[in-house]
């Protein structure tokens, strides 16, 4: 075995022979190697998170037609370090009447729920944390731990505005889990398994975004709502409730929430890439070696993250009742209809040639999209006529 083609197993074997050679028991060596793997993965993701702070600030600056950080280091690349040092040296205030254990546990759980997700991302054909055969549901489960941390943070802060922000945020989070699960089932149907490795292997010939573009779009919208980012960012509605559920957090605890949110956005960019954009496949380049595959996956995840940031800095925030109505009256029915149609077309076209299959699936999606747009146009036309009827009636009554 070779380092270039199988780095994880190579290092694991080398460490194992080293530890057993020092006289350690076999099971203890295996346990320590697994712990080392966990620590390495978490450290890599947290270091990458620091880089993400810089990316976020530069990209938002460019969207807003300004330069962004450019003082600290070339192109402002050391800006996140300045941010982190500022957060660490801030005074750590715990509000009066707060519940200390829950108050301190909430930011840790929030970051933990994001780091748990990186255990199942297939970084390369041979580099992954664990090959779980229920990977798609595991994503939702880790998201529920994040939802829980929001309630814990808000309740233990002893602050009314934190509670209001958290109630709205949690209502949005648990509502948008449903279209997310429904659209995550579509790559499951197309690949035949819920495991992330199987889903990526199924995209070897054609990416699932070609077979189910409407599902990819719905998953993206539901994921943005799950992240708590604009246009669904009621928890950070700075003009409304200051900072939502993390009002009372200062210093590095707020830093944990902030870093967790950015890493969460990048993680969902990564999952969008894994589920729909083909994972580490890129016209055969990934066969050059696992590290090339990792670079390809991170590039696609960065693209997904950039799309999420683009939507954030372009679209205005939605009101809470519009948000929930959008979910229950539009996104959930669309997600279920797409799921049923994809399952039906997959069963009907499964044994035909691949060109007919791709064309059939693509055509179904385009047709469904056109039907939805026509229905929406009908609704908006009725609404417009109703308000114009009222307006012209009031104008007529004035004269």
């Amino acid at each position, binding site marked *: 075995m070779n380092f270039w083609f199988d780095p994880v197993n190579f290092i694991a074997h080398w460490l194992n022979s080293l530890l057993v050679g020092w006289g350690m028991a076999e*099971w203890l060596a295996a346990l320590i190697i697994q712990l080392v793997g966990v620590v390495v993965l978490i450290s890599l993701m947290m270091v990458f998170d620091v880089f993400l702070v810089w990316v976020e600030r530069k990209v938002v600056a460019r969207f807003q037609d300004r330069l962004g950080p450019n003082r600290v280091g070339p192109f402002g690349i050391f800006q996140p370090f300045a941010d982190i040092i500022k957060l660490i040296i801030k005074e750590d205030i715990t509000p009066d009447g707060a*519940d200390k254990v*829950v108050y301190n546990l909430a930011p840790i759980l929030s970051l933990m729920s994001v780091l748990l997700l990186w255990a199942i991302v297939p970084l390369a054909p041979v580099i992954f944390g664990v090959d*779980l*055969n*229920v990977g798609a*549901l*595991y994503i*939702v*489960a880790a*998201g*529920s*731990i994040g*939802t*829980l941390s929001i*309630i*814990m943070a808000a*309740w233990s802060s*002893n602050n009314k505005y934190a*509670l209001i922000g958290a*109630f709205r945020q*949690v209502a949005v989070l*648990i509502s948008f*889990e449903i279209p997310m699960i429904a659209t995550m089932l579509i790559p499951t149907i197309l690949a035949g398994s*819920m495991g992330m490795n199987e889903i990526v292997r199924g995209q070897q010939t054609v990416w699932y975004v070609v077979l189910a573009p409407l599902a990819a779009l719905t998953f993206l919208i539901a994921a943005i709502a799950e992240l708590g980012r604009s246009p669904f960012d009621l928890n950070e509605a700075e003009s409304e409730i200051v900072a939502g559920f993390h009002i009372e957090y200062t210093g590095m605890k707020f830093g944990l929430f902030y870093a967790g949110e950015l890493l969460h956005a990048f993680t969902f960019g990564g999952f969008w890439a894994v589920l729909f954009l083909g994972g580490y496949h890129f016209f055969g380049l990934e066969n050059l070696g696992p590290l090339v595959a990792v670079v390809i996956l991170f590039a696609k995840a960065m693209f997904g993250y950039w799309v999420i940031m683009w939507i954030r800095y372009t679209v205005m925030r939605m009101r809470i009742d519009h948000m929930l109505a959008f979910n229950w009256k539009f996104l959930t029915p669309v997600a279920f209809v797409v799921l049923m149609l994809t399952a039906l077309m997959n069963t009907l076209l499964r044994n035909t040639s691949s060109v007919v299959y791709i064309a059939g699936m693509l055509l179904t999606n385009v047709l469904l999209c056109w039907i939805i747009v026509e229905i929406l146009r009908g609704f908006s036309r009725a609404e417009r006529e109703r308000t114009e009827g009222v307006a012209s009636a009031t104008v007529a009554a004035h004269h």
Partner: protein
Amino acid sequence: MTAMQIFFLITGLVILGSALMVVTTRNLIHAALWLIVTLFGVAVLYAILNASFLAVVQVVVYIGAIAILFIFAVMLTRKEMRDRGPQLNKGWWLNAIIALLTFGGLFWMLQSWNGFSKTAADFPSGYDAVGQLGRALISPDAFVLPFEVASVLLLAALVGAVYIAFNRK
């Protein structure tokens, strides 16, 4: 004492300890949070039993939905954020005796069954338990009817809960 047995003992202690905290702690929000620890311990137990789908569904359904519903209900049914008054009934020692008798009765009844101490067969590697479960849930000579009835039950509960809790001004 193999590693699996030690792991099971730790999980069992966590489950029982947090369950005791659920039924004895004064602060109701803390009781709901201890319930979350118990539910997480039960999910770990399902993973030990190789029922991986059930472990993840336990986290999603119980912790992600039911526990959050409990926390919301606790916050919505109080005039102030502190609990006051005794939180256990008078005569709780009688209830403790009843609980101990129940445990004793269950234990005695189970240990007189001859399969009580059997050990598990090895889980066949590569066995697609999730796929088999899916097939069992939708095949007509397996369990499709209870599955559909459960979904009708959920619909009825959804409509009923919305109707009951609706705030008619």
